[in-house]
């Protein structure tokens, strides 16, 4: 039941935050923070649970819940939390707190409704990470879209309508393809066992003809690949990111993209091992193309947020690469990359958002020499840039290294090509530092007063993320142990 509460708390918190606006305009953010902390406490309570194998399932789970929902089609309210889910939910709640921090002073208009949308998005995401019934999974998958759409459409920047619409149509259409795939799978279960089922464990028993399995698998891949995103389904992401408010970008880059990767690990490969293995060379090629092409495109951007958005696509390429290599090291690497990228990308988007808040532009051509004016911000930016480029000792390095190490065992040429991405990453990361923070500071009429350094509160948020990245880089075992629990049974 505690799993259901994990989600419900955020739904209720969203409503509470909305209502709180009518009491005081500054109250919603406090309410949102409180409910997120309640969630965090619930979650920490779960960490000490002893793993067990549920009667009708396989694998080790910390918490498991199954209740009847729509018996006509064998749909259950089935939730489960294992090591992988736990890591993802932890990341979600952590970045949720960070996002509230990012929005703290930026969102002044209609704050109640903003935090309502923020918490409902997070609730949908947590639902995705713990749902085991495929119908329920799809339900949550879609639930997170509308509030995210509203966040971009209401609080976004100059081109918000276009970006929000594009985001929605891409994810919705690919989602419907996934729905068809899910229903085709459930129908095949009906043909073989005489009843519809959306149960994760039961669906693993369905025997499919190779061609059918491939088509269904592709349906899932398109759904997840759009969210991930992977070339050529990535074009919504730069628009959505550059137009979203800072907190929206943090959620998008830090968490929403991870739902795609999570779906691949949890559903696509375990449900269709053979079809996925056959498809792996293509998926890994797409991953390598994502890594290199988006790194190249990132380098050509002048819009700071678009640049970071493209680097996100590039980094998520390592995740796809690791997942489709499908051996322990590679998938561990993918999971570590998801976590580390969640923090580093969120921090970079916060910096970009912070800069935009201060000088009202994201155009790097109008920036330069900021180190002199905002030294603290510059140091923080340098830290997260070198984290993103894969400096040993920080989380991203561990993830990308493991992903490449595992992928090397599966496909040598593609891994060699993909590894070049690390070189490109250094180029664009340092390029940003040079363009924005180094060089000569030119006085700009718009900047003058408003370009102030990070406040103490902001520093606390960045510091939290720094600690996370250093922890992941120095002692990754604490995370690897958790995900090993899941991967042991999946692989």
């Amino acid at each position, binding site marked *: 039941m505690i799993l259901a509460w994990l989600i419900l708390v955020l739904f209720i918190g969203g409503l509470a935050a909305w209502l709180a606006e009518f009491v005081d305009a500054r109250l919603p953010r406090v309410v949102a923070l409180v409910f997120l902390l309640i969630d965090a406490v619930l979650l920490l309570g779960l960490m000490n649970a002893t793993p067990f194998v549920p009667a009708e399932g396989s694998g080790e789970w910390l918490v498991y819940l199954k209740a009847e*929902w729509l*018996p*006509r*089609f064998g749909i259950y309210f089935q939730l489960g939390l294992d090591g992988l889910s736990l890591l993802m939910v932890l990341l979600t709640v952590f970045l949720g707190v960070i996002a509230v921090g990012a929005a703290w002073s930026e969102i002044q208009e209609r704050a109640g409704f903003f935090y309502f949308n923020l918490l409902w998005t997070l609730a949908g995401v947590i639902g995705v990470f713990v749902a085991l019934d495929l119908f329920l999974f799809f339900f949550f998958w879609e639930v997170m879209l509308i509030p995210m759409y*509203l966040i971009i459409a209401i609080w976004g920047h100059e081109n918000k309508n276009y970006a929000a*619409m594009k985001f*929605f149509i891409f994810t919705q259409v690919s989602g419907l393809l996934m729905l*068809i795939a899910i229903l085709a799978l459930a*129908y095949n279960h009906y043909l073989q066992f005489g009843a519809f089922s959306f149960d994760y464990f039961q669906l693993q028993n369905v025997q499919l003809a190779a061609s059918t399995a491939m088509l269904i698998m592709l349906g899932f891949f398109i759904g997840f690949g759009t969210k991930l995103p992977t070339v050529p389904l990535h074009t919504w992401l730069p628009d959505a990111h550059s137009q979203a408010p800072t907190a929206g970008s943090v959620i998008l880059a830090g968490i929403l993209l991870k739902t795609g990767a999570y779906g691949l690990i949890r559903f696509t490969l375990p449900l269709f091992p053979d079809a996925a293995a056959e498809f792996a060379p293509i998926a890994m090629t797409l991953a390598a193309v994502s890594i290199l092409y988006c790194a190249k495109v990132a380098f050509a951007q002048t819009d700071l947020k678009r640049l970071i958005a493209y680097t996100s696509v590039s980094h998520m390429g390592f995740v796809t690469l690791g997942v489709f290599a499908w051996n322990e090291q590679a998938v561990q690497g993918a999971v570590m990359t998801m976590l580390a990228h969640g923090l580093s990308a969120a921090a970079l988007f916060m910096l970009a958002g912070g800069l935009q808040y201060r000088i009202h532009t994201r155009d790097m051509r109008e920036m330069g020499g900021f180190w002199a004016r905002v030294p603290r911000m510059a140091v923080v930016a340098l830290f997260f840039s070198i984290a993103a480029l894969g400096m040993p000792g920080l989380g991203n390095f561990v993830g990308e290294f493991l992903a490449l190490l595992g992928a090397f065992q599966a496909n040598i040429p593609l891994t060699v090509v993909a590894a070049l991405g690390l070189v490109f990453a250094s180029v664009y990361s340092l390029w940003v530092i040079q363009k924005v923070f180094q060089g000569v500071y030119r006085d700009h009429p718009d900047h003058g007063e408003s370009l102030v350094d990070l406040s103490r509160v902001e520093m606390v948020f960045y510091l939290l993320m720094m600690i996370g990245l250093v922890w992941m880089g120095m002692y990754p075992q604490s995370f690897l142990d958790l995900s090993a629990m899941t991967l042991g049974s999946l692989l």
Partner: protein
Amino acid sequence: MELALTLQDLVPLLPIEVVTGFVVLVMLLIAWKRNHTVSCAVTILGIVLALLATLLVLPFAGQQITDLLVIDNFSLFFTAVVLATTGCIAVLSYPYLYNLNDEVEEFYLLLLIATIGALIMVSSNHFISAFLGLETLSISLYAMIAYPVHSKEAAKFPLEASVKYLVLSAVSSAFILFSIALLYAQTGTLQFTDLSVATAGAEVRTSYYATTLVLLLAGVGFKLSLAPFHMWTPDVYEGAPLPATTFLATVGKAAMMVLLLRFVVASGLLNYASVVTVMGVIAVLSILGGNLLALVQGNLKRILAYSSIAHMGYLLIAVIALGSASTTLGIEAVSFYLVAYIIMSLGAFGVATVVSTSEKEFDFVTDYQGLFWRDPWLALLLTAMLLSLAGIPLTVGFIGKFYLVLAGVEGALWGLLLVLVAGSGIGIYYYLRIVYRMLLQSEVQQEYREAGWGSIGSYVVLTFLLAMLVLLGVYPAFLMSMLEVIAVSV
């Protein structure tokens, strides 16, 4: 042919009799003394009593009343749906007609007569009763669409809409009649269930039968506004007063679809490959045409008109799926989607009706700019209805789409399903455009006219619809099990 009506046969027909009785009562009341409030209240009372009567006759389900009507769980379910919808429309009509500078009471009379037609249609498995029901519905609708025509300042163009609907509807009725005659000439029966037996013999030529059925489909396509027979829809929707539009879009469509469903199941229509192909083409044209044309509209009524064309196309997929695999799932899918479609159309038109009156309709998307910040509750209602039409989870539209896709998967209609995905993708654009418009800052303060306490009822109806929308979107188990039962009875 057994046409003798016994006294026992009258019992299962109680809902229809109650409505007919109230038609007479409302007419007499108008003749005695005109009073808008009384007419409306008596109409609603009649509908509520008819709903109760529907519950009462449940134990008598599963009877053929003469050759013309069948009272089974399926027809009773849709009897209840039609009655509930009409009740909602009656409540919504009151504030709308409040300021009309003409006699308003007959509108409720027409509403009740049209309802009788719809009730006959959902209970019919014979061409004669089907046609009579259809004409009763249509003829009342001509008058309802033209209703404010004598008013000095009618909001829209009721006469144009009515004439357009009259001419095209009459033509399509002629199509239907002609195909019925052709069918009768070959088979010698007008009973749906006998058709499959009669045509099973080798003496009926396939091409003849298929041609006849395609003629019939053309007529039905007009009534359901399926492309390429959809031309009248946007004009009639826009020109008609809102309550008439709502009735046409909900009860009018649903009754025809129920009839089609019964006919398809009973007649073995889908055994003809050419008929299936024609239906597939109609579905594709409706989905793509409806959605694409909706993209360029600026008028809410026209957008909903085109979107209804697309939704009828989606529904047709499930009807086609009846031909293969298990029939019951297809029937459940169509029934559920019809209920979903009625809830969300009623809600969307209802929001427009609440803010409009017979002299001034707020039916442009721009009229709703900034509604979120002016009237959050109304904006929330409209947003929920639009998101449901787009098929987003937490709403009944999502479960409806789930049913349709499941039926399509079972029938292995992959091509049609891909068209459905494409159509839904396009659909999101124009639904969200309205939502986005409501989120913008309003430039001018729209002066919505309201009819005092009369619109409280409308708000109650809309809130009820929202509750149903969410309830059936989150926990539709009870409706699912109900549909499982009624689907067997067809």
